[in-house]
Structure formats: C-alpha cells, structure tokens
C-alpha cells in the first residue's frame, strides 16, 4: 500500500459525478471531498441517488460523467484504488450455501495482505463468533449486516464506505452499529456513511452532504448548517390568528406554520425581538415563546422541501424520513 500517497490525498474526491439510466438521471453532478478523519454523512430521501453515488465510488458502476478519486486513485481504472478502502452498498451479500466464516475466508483470500489473519478478530468485533460456523443462508438480516462490517474490517481499511448500515436493525442493533462506527472513527478511520435516518447522521457525522434528486443541496459542517438555518421557535399568544398575520408580515421570520395550537417559525434572535414588540402592538400578547434546537431533520426539510412542509419541531424519537 502506498502510504505516502494515501496521506497526501483526500480519502474521497468526487467531481461532477453523473449517472444516467436512459431517461432517468440518478446522480446529477455531485461534487464532494471527504477529508482524513471525517465521519461523512451522505444524506437523502429514498431514490436521491445515494447508493448510486457510492457504487461509483467503489467502482461497481461506470459514471456517465465526472470522476471519483480515492486517495487520489481512480476506482474505474483498477481495483488497486480500493487498497485501504472497504465497505458495501445496500445490504451486504454473501454466498448463502457457505458458512459465515468460510465466506470471510473467501473474501480474505481475495484481499491478500494478511487479511486471513484478521478473521477471528473481525468476527469478535461484530459479535458473530458463535454463529460463524452456520450457513449464511440462515442468518437474520442483522447478522448479515454485521457480517458485512466484519468483511469490511478484514481489509484493515483507512476509509470505510457504508450504505445505510443501520437499515433494518432493531434499536439495539442500531445502537451497536453507532457505537462501532464511532469507535472506528476514534481509531482514525475515515467513514462515509449514507443514511436517511437523521438522528444517526447527526450523532455520528461531523460533515454531511444532503442530496436530493441526485443533486447536493448542502455540503459542509452540521454546526454551520444549524447556525445558518437559525433557531426554531414555538409561539403561543392570546390571539393566534392575529399573531399569525403579524408573523407573516415580519422580516426574518421563516418556515412559518401553525401546529397543534402553536405557531412555529424559524428566525434569528434579532428578528424575534422585533417580532415580540410587533405582537404587543397588534394586541396579541405572548403567552409562551420557546426556542427549540433545530434537528438535522428540520434542516433537511427546510432544504429539500422548501417552505411549504408543515413539520413538528424537534421530536426526540428517531424518525425515519421516508417510507
């Protein structure tokens, strides 16, 4: 492995990536850069083009246009570009008629570079040691998902590309997956993680790209996105109808909507101060004005659905965006 090269080039550099399936444009010009040590969230609703993008990164499908470089190497040109890279797209797959261990033995043989010596450790990490001698055909979804992680770990990767790794897992499995990913990141691994489970991304990722219809609608730090999106407030007044009209007329009040007898909107502090005065002048006295922290979910909706989506503010439960 060319470590000198690997350290000087970003783990993932994607430029102008396009994938077209006859009439359908699955990925429409994606640019992104993943830096060393990032846990990078690739976030979007069903059909946004996440899996298609990751397939191109792994060299499984040919881009219609654009380039992918992994540590500066082109995965379309040679599988050498995947040295130090591991991962899977959609659910990981194995030979159902072989045992879990034998599947890993096969993949380790295909990896070379000492991968066979890592099998036991990898099985242990994903807690599959006791089921390793069962045929994969009899594995549950969650077990296959964990075997997928084990298969990726065999390569001792510096970059891990995971496509919705927690999909289909029960709450315990999801937590285990998050703990594992965080641990890998702490060990210095760069992780690219696609997801439509927002709390998962928010919890794990330091940077995100939000995609919709094959386009990136936001790329950057979550903190920056949150700051730019402002704070969401909940307002309750003595005359909500009048208050609504006042809010509508105010500058700097965004995402205005009414929700369960409350008025919800997004604004910065200055706009809120002006608003409170306007409300008093209009005779709608404030009963409660509660700032909520915008979750990525709110941000996601304000980015991808525009102004019209009436959404509850920051619900604590993990909610899947679509389906």
């Amino acid at each position: 492995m060319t470590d000198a090269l690997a350290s000087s080039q970003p783990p993932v550099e994607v430029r102008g990536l396009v994938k077209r399936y006859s009439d359908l444009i699955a990925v429409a010009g994606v640019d992104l850069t993943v830096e060393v040590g990032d846990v990078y969230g690739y976030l979007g609703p069903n059909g946004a083009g996440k899996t298609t993008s990751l397939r191109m990164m792994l060299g499984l499908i040919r881009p219609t246009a654009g380039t992918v470089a992994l540590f500066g190497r082109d995965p379309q040109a040679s599988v050498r570009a995947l040295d130090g890279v591991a991962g899977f797209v959609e659910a990981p797959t194995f030979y159902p008629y072989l045992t879990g261990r034998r599947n890993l033995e096969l993949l380790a043989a295909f990896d070379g570079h000492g991968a066979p010596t890592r099998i036991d450790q990898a099985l242990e990490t994903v807690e599959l040691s006791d089921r390793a001698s069962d045929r994969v055909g009899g594995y549950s979804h969650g077990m296959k998902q964990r075997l997928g992680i084990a298969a990726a770990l065999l390569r001792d990767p510096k970059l891990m590309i995971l496509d919705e790794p927690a999909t289909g897992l029960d709450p315990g499995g999801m937590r285990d997956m998050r703990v594992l990913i965080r641990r890998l990141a702490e060990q210095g691994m760069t992780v690219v993680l696609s997801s439509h489970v927002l709390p998962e991304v928010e919890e794990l990722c330091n940077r995100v790209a939000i995609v919709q219809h094959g386009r990136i609608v936001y790329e950057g730090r979550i903190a920056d996105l949150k700051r730019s999106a402002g704070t969401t407030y909940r307002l309750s007044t003595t005359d909500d109808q009048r208050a609504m009209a006042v809010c509508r007329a105010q500058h700097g009040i965004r995402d205005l909507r009414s929700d369960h007898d409350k008025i919800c909107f997004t604004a910065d502090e200055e706009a809120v101060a002006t608003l409170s005065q306007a409300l008093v002048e209009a005779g709608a006295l404030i009963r409660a004005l509660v700032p909520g922290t915008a979750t990525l979910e709110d941000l996601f909706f304000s980015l991808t659905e525009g102004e019209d989506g009436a959404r509850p503010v920051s619900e604590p439960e993990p909610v899947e965006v679509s389906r």
Partner: protein
Amino acid sequence: MKSPGVATVYRWELTKLRYQKRTYLGLGAAAAVPILFVVAIHFRHDRRGGDFAFASYLTKSGLAVPLVLLLFGAVWLFPLITALVAGDIFASEDHNGTLKTVLTRSLERGQIFGGKALAAATYAVAAIMLSGTVAVVAGSIQSGFNSLQSLSGTIVSAPKGLELVYLGLLVYLIPIAAIVCIGLMLSTITRNSAAAVVGTLMISLLIQLIGILPGLSGTQPYLLSTQFNAWQGLLRTPTDWAPIIHAAWVCACYGLPSLATAYLVFLRRDVAGG
C-alpha cells in the same frame, strides 16, 4: 504473503462448487447415465446389435460402452452437464447479489473472470472423465475388458483400446470447450442461470438442426455439432487426424468469440442491484 490472483479465484470457485447441489446433479447424471446404459445392455443382450457404430461390440467389450455413450450423449447430455455450471457461474453471482461483494476486494474483474472460466472448464472435464471412467468400469463388468474392433475393422487390444477411449474423451472435450465458452457468454449476458443453461443447450441442439435442413447440408463440416464426432478419427487405422484438427479450429471459431464477448461484458458491466 502471495498476492491473490486467478489461482485464488479458481481455488475458491472449486470450493464453492463443492457446496452447491447443481454440481452433484451434473456429476450424478454423468455417472448415472453410463450405469443405466450398461443395465439396459444387460437386459437386452439377446438382441443382436443396432445400426450404429460399436453396437455389435457392446456385449463383447466394455470399452465399447464409453464410445457409444459419446455417440449418443454427444449433442445434449454432456452439453447440458457442462452448461449446468458454465451457464450458472456468473449468473449465480447475480442471483445472490454477490458480485459487488467480490468486486470490492483486491482482485481485478479480469482475474475473477479467469478463475471462474477455468473452474467451469474444470467441471466439464471432471464430468466427462467421470462419465467415461464409469462407462469403462461398468461396461467391463458387464461385457468384459476385451479387445475392440476399430471403425476400420481392425482389432484393437484392450489396453490400446482403453488408451483410445481416453484420447477420444480428450478430443470430445474440444467441442465441449466451445460449449463452456457459449455457456459463460450467456451467463454474463442473461445474468440468469436458467436462461443461460437452457440457452446453451438450445444453441447446441439448434446448430445440429441446421445441418438437417434441406439445402444446408453443405454447412455440416462447420457446425459445432459435427465436431462432437471428431474423436472417431482416433478409432480408425491409421489414425485419422483430419477431423480432429478440423474440430480444433472450428470449435475455436465458436468458442473464442463467445469467450471474448463474455470477458468484455463482464469487464464493462455495471454491478447494480443485489
């Protein structure tokens, strides 16, 4: 540690074959057909011969059994057994969605292709050699390990006859190699095991039909089906190499373009789905 290559893929493809039912289905058929054949001879030994080559020898020498088997199994049995694995070897990866798993390791697509193609060929060789050996053994038990009359009418001693049987099986493998290539091509193109297996067999049978059509008998020497009889040249005295050499290049004309197509399709294809 040695880096992985075609040999790694080849070894693991053979391992995978050991764990799949269809492997034993094909090998089982390859072994069962000569046994059934010998059983049939046993119960019909009163009827004297048929109108095909070696027929009258079936009850005199066990060595006639593999030869008659080749005569009859030629265009369907062995192509079917061959196609069972060749047609499946890429399509099953599509079926299991495992291509994405193996293509994201450290092997180039060309290396994966090479290992798989070799494994499919190995299976065909194993099936035919198994069938031939079972035929020799079962035939010898039934009719004795005796000398044989060649197609030119000369008598061939039993040991020499055995040698000719195995040489004949080897020559028979030439058109089988073309069938392997066609199977691999259909396996990569259709991505569907059943379609590829049936398709390969259909091609083998349809090619034979062309020669039967009126006015097309001139195509006979260039048909793949004809090459399945090339081994008969060995059973003439002196040995007639002409049909064997002819078979070699005709089969190459069928096999190599198919193999090249399979290779290019596999190299260039999108691995989506699964």
